[in-house]
């Protein structure tokens, strides 16, 4: 059924169609609308046979999810940013215990400075946690990915994080095709836990494992992600048979077949990139785009296969490995080893900075001329940066960089008032 609704509500409805049994969450922008909607559905009875638990922190949210999932309940939670970091220990733990929890990460920057707007720093900070991480390009895909996530999680006994750009997707009203309950039921069988806390068959879950078996345990976690790499396309195929649309591939290719330049990115920015690709193609530039849906497991082979004929790759990412450069770019480089092509890293959209078509045009054109720096910060205000750096060189100033920058751009700071 087609609906014009907010991304968060679309996701909430999709989650509800998955018949979750336990939902626990702690509010943080921009995740709030999702859990508010679910809370209401549970309270109103629209979503029955489900417990909605208002916890006291994200750490508790993930912990409650761990307990519920280990006890055999289909479990969902959502968070973002600081919340994801606050639950970090439990995030790793859920994966280590092989619990098929599904969590939405309404992607948001991480402070300090505190910032509620979108980028991918939060999700990528958890890239080694053992979770499967899927990025949605659109609200439709966000909705679909949740349905797929439960199926994938439960099949592999692994938690899945569905990442959707905060505000850009969560708060955007878009038209979506909401599946029916029958469709979802056909795709997603009831949860049959692989192992479960049950007095009828007691086991001890969560043993302490020493050097004698720890490497094996970790390897098995890795191997499981590699299995996911095989299962995701299969499930996506099944998904399209039942729901009649493509969603949740490992990657989305856009006019990459003969492209000399391939732009690689994740999430909603792919929409803007595709527009720019179309415009540049129209003016005869050989350019295409590759959207990564499955960030973890990393689809290295598919990436390699896609770009091996190109002359250059531009990785545009909403994250920064401070002191290194790109995070996604580093992963992509893994896929490219041995291929002779130029690789550029572009850090863009941090903390909600808009990624403008005009900026992308200029960026890709320079890339086409191979004039790009190795690492480029899109639309950086160099005046400010240089002024700060200059002063730093002369007076080693202590205090927060953020405050100093604000002072430089002329905004009164708390300490300055």
């Amino acid at each position: 059924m087609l609906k014009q609704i907010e991304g968060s509500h679309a996701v909430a409805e999709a989650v509800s169609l998955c018949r979750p049994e336990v939902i626990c969450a702690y509010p943080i922008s921009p995740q709030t609308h999702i859990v508010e909607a679910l809370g209401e559905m549970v309270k109103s009875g629209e979503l029955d046979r489900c417990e909605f638990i208002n916890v006291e922190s994200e750490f508790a949210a993930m912990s409650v999810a761990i307990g519920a999932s280990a006890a055999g309940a289909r479990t969902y939670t959502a968070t973002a940013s600081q919340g994801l970091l606050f639950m970090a220990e439990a995030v790793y733990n859920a994966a280590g215990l092989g619990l098929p929890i599904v969590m939405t990460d309404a992607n948001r920057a991480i402070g300090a400075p505190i910032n509620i707007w979108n980028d991918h720093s939060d999700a990528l900070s958890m890239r080694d946690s053992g979770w499967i991480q899927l990025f949605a390009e659109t609200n439709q895909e966000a909705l679909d990915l949740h349905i797929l996530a439960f199926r994938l999680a439960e099949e592999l006994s692994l938690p899945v994080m569905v990442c959707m750009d905060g505000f850009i997707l969560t708060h955007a009203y878009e038209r979506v095709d909401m599946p029916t309950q029958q469709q979802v039921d056909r795709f997603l069988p009831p949860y049959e836990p692989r192992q479960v806390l049950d007095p009828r068959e007691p086991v001890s879950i969560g043993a302490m494992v020493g050097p004698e078996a720890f490497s094996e345990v970790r390897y098995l976690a890795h191997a499981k992600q590699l299995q996911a790499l095989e299962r995701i396309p299969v499930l996506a195929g099944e998904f399209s048979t039942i729901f009649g649309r493509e969603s949740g591939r490992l990657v989305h290719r856009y006019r990459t077949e003969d492209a000399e330049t391939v732009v690689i990115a994740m999430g909603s920015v792919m929409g803007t990139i595709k527009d720019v690709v179309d415009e540049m193609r129209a003016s005869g530039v050989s350019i295409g785009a590759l959207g990564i849906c499955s960030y973890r497991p990393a689809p290295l082979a598919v990436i390699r296969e896609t770009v091996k004929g190109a002359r250059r790759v531009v990785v545009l990412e909403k994250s920064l490995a401070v002191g290194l450069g790109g995070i996604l770019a580093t992963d992509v480089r893994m896929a490219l080893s041995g291929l002779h092509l130029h690789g550029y890293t572009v850090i863009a959209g941090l903390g909600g900075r808009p990624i403008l078509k005009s900026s992308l045009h200029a960026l890709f054109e320079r890339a086409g001329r191979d004039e790009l720096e190795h690492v480029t910060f899109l639309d950086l205000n160099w005046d400010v940066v240089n002024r700060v750096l200059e002063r730093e060189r002369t007076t080693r100033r202590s205090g927060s960089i953020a405050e100093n920058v604000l002072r430089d751009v002329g905004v009164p700071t708390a300490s300055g008032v």
Partner: protein
Amino acid sequence: METQIIKFYQTGSFAVGNRLLDESQRSVQANMRRSNSLNSGHRACQGCGEALGARYAIDAAMQATSNQLIAVNATGCLEVFSTPYPETSWQLPWIHSLFGNAAAVATGVAAAMRVKGRQDVRVIAQGGDGGTTDIGFGCLSGMFERNDDVLYICYDNEGYMNTGVQRSSATPPAARTSTTAAIGEEPGNGFGQGKFVPAIAMAHEIPYVATASVAYLRDLEAKVHRAMSLRGARYLHIFVPCPLGWGAASEDTIRLARLVVETGLFPLFEAEHGEVTGRYQIRHRVPVEEYLRLQKRYSHLLGKRPAVATIARIQAMAERNIRRYGLLGEEA
């Protein structure tokens, strides 16, 4: 529960067993078929009070629930000594997640049971004092405040034992730990710090809060039974001596757990919805020195030149408890 009138018998209900009672009236621990929830082969130190307390409590809960029980365990000695791969000592469904989240994980398990219509299966969360009063305190308070159907059991050995005997907020004043050395102006842990979580639990007005000690088995079991007869958030704080951490002889574990009560340093009581409903009255009152003397963590107080003033402060703490909880009955 029907009660049997016990004709006077040697040990009354002080000892574990009483061969003159009906089977149904005996302690769980006296039963030949007790569940031994925490089985032999665990790696706790010799004389570990925590290992003992855990078996006492969980066996009692197993009996109260006809074995329909799931346990969630915080990181700490109890977890480490009971489940090192490839051996577990637990005989019931059990999960360990993290150090600070046992209460929340238990909430999740309870929610799953409720949603699956298996309300007969009950949930216990358990952890050390560190996992309870410090790092797990947020989750604990959250579980209390939501009145989730979980019995949380804290095994209080007054310090972070698993990591080498560091101070926790349950470490008593003057006690030496590896982070409160017996040196300086105020050797050992400082006075005027720390918290008594049972009182904080009561402030949540949850259905049931109780303290217990491994030296008072029947009392402990009765409290577990009472707790399991209620729904909602319940808290049991069990005093469990740690021979290693306290520098005590392994055979003194129960003696210490008894003396701490008989001195008044650790009050035994129970409370429902925030109000004290029962208290143990001291049977043979003893001065605190008798308790302190058996532990090396207090040796700096006792040697040749005893720290009289410090001992007096500890004695005053005992007296405050006696007053506050009415541990001497009428005369108090």
